[in-house]
């Protein structure tokens, strides 16, 4: 144990001792760690001078390796070499399908585990290995234990993905001060937070995904206005386009190995064409020239797709192209000149490019970490983020009742009151869902919990207040309280089962496309629920107080109920409504008689004074 140092009075050893803080970009393809060193923001390299750590983990016979060493094992020992674990963070078995690994569901949670020779590994464990390497790198470079870190996540990451990222960090022994959205980090890296006011588009074209975010900032306060993107579009598709062109031009049908070589070649070609107007290429003796003009013709449809997403995000934010003051580029694929040209012509300003697009996110995270750890007490920078997808509850009939809408600024607390459906109901299932669609089945299920011990009351009399709270990291907790009795239950949302990123962005798109269908389905379903409620309450009233009815009345009501049951299984909203009105009309007198009878009963044997 180190001895405690005591300095001479009035002479502390270093009054300006900086706390050690770093920013980490935990990427799908590469990860980085960066720090603020005096006025200099820098990524930290490994011993051979490389800042980019490939996000790949190899589980070998004797040791676990991470980064380039692991990447070298990809071909040789692919089953034990895990790449792109980020895609499965907080995701379910269904999302693991189609990935080139063996999976087993976890016994506790049902979440997918990679089967490796060193045992089953969760995506959280794999990510923790990567974080561990970055942590040691940072501690060596900064000369001691870290006081805190900021880790970046995609803006569209949902609850379980954020929670999984935090879990990986604690597994690696890191103290996470904040999860930061990647686009916000990129804007911070450009010092845009120091601008008086502005609107920023962050265009992030990675290897396999495209994300666009629109941010507004005013005197150091950031607000995310909208996010969007395409999770199946990235720089790899540029390579693919070149590779397919070669296959077509050369008239060959390459083997899988040749195709892999061809992709590697295509990647080089793409990089050369960033600098030059044309390139000679030689694929196993077949030679040709590819000009930048030809290359651009190949990738034009892909770039058009990204521009369409950009326009959609602008619309979501309620903005026009010329409202954008700055465009920030993230991801190596944004080096392609055509991307920059397309953005320049769309927005009328050239995108910012002075910070390396591979490092910009990590550097922004480092700047924020430096502030949060307390090294800049006078900073007035404040990042206000939003939730990417709406959060709601399942109500009767499988409907999604949204409690917090997407793009709401966090942290946020919102409460909504619900009630019981049946007489004497003492428990309630609270099902928390995430997504934009009207029917629960079309959204993502985040978790369920039960509220028990509700005192028995007539249907509709209980007041159950359900409170959603999303903290500044975007993590959700839900609690429910019955107001009259005070019984409570709650959950913190943990990964349960999941959807792929593609499904998330797909869900948003579909919610637009299905808005009309959904509304019809919803209103029919609401009518059916209303019918069920009516059947339930009239039947139970007859069972208890049937003696208050004449024979004729009983006959009429029973017949009307039967008719209601009949129409309720048919999908005719109007017919159901007509029948509900009929039952309601027939039972009006009955309801009044029941009310009188119960008041009489309640008063029997009591003095009026007792009620004062």
């Amino acid at each position, binding site marked *: 144990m180190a001895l405690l140092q005591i300095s001479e009075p009035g002479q502390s050893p270093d009054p300006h001792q900086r706390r050690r803080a770093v920013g980490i970009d935990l990427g799908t393809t590469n990860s980085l760690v960066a720090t603020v060193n005096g006025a200099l923001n820098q990524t930290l390299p490994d011993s051979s001078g490389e800042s980019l750590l490939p996000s790949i983990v190899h589980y070998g016979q004797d040791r676990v390796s991470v980064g380039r060493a692991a990447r070298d094992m990809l071909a040789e020992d692919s089953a034990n070499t895990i790449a792109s674990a980020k895609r499965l963070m907080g995701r379910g078995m269904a999302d693991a399908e189609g990935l080139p690994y063996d999976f087993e569901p976890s016994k506790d949670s049902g979440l997918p585990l990679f089967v490796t020779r060193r045992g089953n590994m969760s995506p959280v464990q794999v990510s923790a290995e990567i974080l561990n390497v970055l942590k040691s790198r940072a501690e060596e470079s900064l000369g001691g234990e870290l006081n805190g870190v900021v880790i970046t996540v995609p803006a569209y990451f949902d609850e379980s993905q954020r929670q999984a990222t935090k879990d990986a960090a604690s597994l690696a022994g890191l103290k996470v001060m904040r999860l930061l959205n990647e686009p916000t980090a990129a804007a911070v890296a450009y010092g845009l937070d120091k601008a008086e006011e502005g609107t920023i588009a962050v265009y992030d074209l990675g290897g396999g995904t495209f994300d666009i975010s629109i941010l507004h900032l005013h005197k150091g306060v950031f607000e995310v206005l909208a996010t969007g993107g395409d999770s199946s579009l990235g720089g790899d598709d540029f390579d693919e386009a070149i590779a397919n062109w070669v296959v077509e031009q050369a008239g060959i049908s390459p083997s899988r190995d040749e195709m892999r070589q061809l992709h590697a070649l295509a990647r080089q070609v793409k990089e050369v064409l960033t600098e030059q107007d044309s390139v000679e290429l030689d694929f196993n003796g077949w030679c040709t020239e590819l000009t930048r003009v030809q290359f651009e013709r190949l990738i034009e449809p892909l770039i058009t797709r990204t521009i369409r997403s950009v326009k959609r995000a602008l619309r979501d934010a309620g903005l026009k192209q010329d409202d954008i003051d700055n465009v920030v580029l993230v991801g190596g694929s944004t080096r392609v000149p055509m991307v920059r040209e397309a953005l320049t012509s769309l927005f009328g300003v050239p995108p910012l490019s002075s910070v390396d697009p591979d490092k910009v996110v990590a550097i922004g995270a480092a700047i924020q970490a430096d502030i949060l750890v*307390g090294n800049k007490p006078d900073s007035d920078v404040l990042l*206000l983020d939003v939730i990417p997808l709406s959060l709601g509850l399942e109500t009767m009939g499988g409907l999604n009742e949204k409690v917090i809408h997407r793009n709401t600024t966090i942290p946020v607390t919102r409460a909504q009151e619900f009630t019981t459906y049946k007489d004497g109901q003492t428990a309630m299932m609270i099902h928390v869902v995430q997504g934009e669609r009207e029917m629960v089945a079309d959204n993502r299920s985040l978790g369920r919990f039960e509220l028990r011990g509700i005192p028995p009351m007539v249907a509709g009399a209980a007041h159950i207040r359900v409170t959603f709270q999303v903290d500044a990291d975007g993590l959700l907790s839900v609690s429910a309280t019955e107001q009259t009795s005070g019984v409570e239950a709650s959950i913190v949302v943990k990964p349960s089962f999941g959807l792929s990123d593609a499904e998330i962005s797909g869900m948003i798109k579909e919610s637009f496309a299905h808005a009309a269908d959904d509304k019809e389905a919803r209103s029919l379903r609401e009518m059916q629920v209303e019918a069920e409620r009516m059947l339930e309450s009239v039947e139970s009233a007859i069972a208890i107080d049937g003696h208050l009815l004449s024979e004729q009345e009983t006959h009429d009501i029973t017949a009307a109920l039967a008719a209601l049951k009949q129409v309720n299984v048919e999908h005719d909203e109007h017919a159901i409504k007509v029948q509900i009105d009929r039952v309601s009309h027939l039972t009006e007198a009955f309801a009044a008689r029941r009310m009188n009878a119960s008041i009489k009963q309640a008063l029997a044997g009591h003095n009026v004074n007792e009620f004062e």
Partner: protein
Amino acid sequence: MFQQNYFELFGLPVQFNLNRSDLSSAFRQQQTAHHPDKFAHADDKSQRESLQKSAYINQAYQTLSTPTLRAAYLLELAEGKERREHTMRPDAAFLMQQMMWREQLEEAETLDDIESLIETVRSELPVVETSFVSAYEKQDYELAHHAVDKMQFVYKLVAEAESKEARLLDE
């Protein structure tokens, strides 16, 4: 803080018309003082308090910056939480107008059609807002609720028209 109503929180007069930039700057000032990022290194209790305060500020800001929510909130303050159930006399002229607009939206086929409809519907907003303000000031809350309903309808229709426009643009 939690005893203050949203207008008091931001130091604004309790009324429908407000200065957007006063609201935004008061919001930012409050968040700068209470946001969890300012308490990342504080003890658990301060962190919890900051989370609750920051959420309350966000809620207040959203309510006041959205005209329909702001109008409904004013009525809630005026009438108390136990709002009387107003027996609403339907406004026949406005119902006709709604049906006409809905039909126009359904029939709209070109971007121009939709844009001109959006413009027409939007131009109704200042009228409805003025009628809210005058009803609210005269404490005719029934009429004021009517105006809020109209406002909601207008915003909803504009949103629907814009999403139809977005679909056309994507095709």
